[in-house]
């Protein structure tokens, strides 16, 4: 089958040299590898939620600008908007928005402190500290937002 005068006198050498399949962690094709923190530690969850809230906040920003532009369309347009803005569903979304802002902001502070080498070994402690502060503010904020409706 193979003779010893060929450079690779071994069976199947060309197949061996082909690059094999690369497994990725996560759902779907590789760019979503960060999206699947199942079975991972806190750090991955924080990372994944930070990205999702980041995307959410960007989306919210444009939505907010769009809503504010209603002011240019006159008083009745704005009043129509205010009617929707005080419905329970909308208020619920407001609480969600508050969560997004708190998480992204506090985690961002954590990443900044850790990521520039200031306190690299305290990332878990910072995460839980942020969670506590965030939870207190979120609960206070949620009570007031829903109470205002």
């Amino acid at each position, binding site marked *: 089958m193979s003779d010893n005068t060929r450079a690779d006198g071994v069976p*199947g050498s060309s*197949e*061996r040299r*082909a*690059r*094999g*399949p*690369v*497994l*990725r*962690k*996560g759902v779907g094709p*590789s*760019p*979503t*590898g*960060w999206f699947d*923190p*199942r*079975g*991972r*530690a*806190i*750090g*991955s969850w*924080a*990372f*994944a939620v930070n990205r999702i809230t980041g995307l959410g906040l960007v989306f919210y920003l444009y939505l907010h600008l769009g809503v504010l532009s209603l002011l240019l369309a006159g008083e009745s347009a704005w009043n129509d908007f205010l009617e929707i803005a005080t419905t329970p569903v909308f208020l619920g979304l407001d609480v969600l928005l508050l969560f997004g802002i708190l998480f992204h902001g506090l985690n961002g502070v954590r*990443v900044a402190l*850790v*990521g*520039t*080498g*200031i306190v*690299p*070994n305290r*990332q878990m402690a910072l995460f839980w500290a942020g969670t506590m502060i965030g939870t207190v503010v979120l609960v206070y904020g949620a009570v007031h937002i829903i109470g205002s409706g």
Partner: protein
Amino acid sequence: METIEETATAATEATETRRFRVFRFKRGDRGPHLDEFDVPVTARTTLFDAMRWIQFNRDPSLALRHSCLHASCGTCGVRANGREVLMCVTAVHDLGREITVEPVANIPVLTDLVVDMTEFYARFPEAHPLVRESGFDLGAEAPEGVPTYQRYEDCIECGLCLSACPVVATTDRYVGPGALAWAQRILEEPRGEDVLSVRDWADDPDGAWRCHAAFECTEACPSNVNPAARIMQLRGALVGPRLTRREMPR
């Protein structure tokens, strides 16, 4: 923490069976598949023991990578139920009734549970010093003629950090936690290496700046390298001189 007494009684524990789903792939196959095996295990059985039992008693074509059997060589890394582990020091007991065993992620598969480490080593820019100052000397003197106690670097080049990193999962260009941890060690203890060229190599969008602080690498590392913290320290070292306009140390 195990004591001698606990080690002794393990021998009297009963044998039970666990089901393993093992990733299989041979070159030329259209795609991978999972093979199921029922393996007898005791409290002492490691994942390596179980895979080898399959190799010797059920399927001799199962390819396994291993060498030292004591977490020193880093060759037996796999993912068990999605978590990165070294087979030789992972008790089957801790893994659950049904265990899925796959090769580590983000490195091309060579065959079955074996990955082609060429792509792991390709992320390092050059060969690196293996030996460092011990750091474990309790104030002891080194013997006459030995300048200082030495030991091997902690990193056993297992690739578990690369497998666990969510950023590596999205791109092959990121050098990864292992190589960056190595770079930080050079900055920390140069040993005659070219510190400036190591800094330049790390100071790159696909180098130290690609990390997003998920800390999975530190979680997965079986050898206490703590690559995540080292990457952060590396960043501090890269940014510091710029902020203070200090001359870069030569």
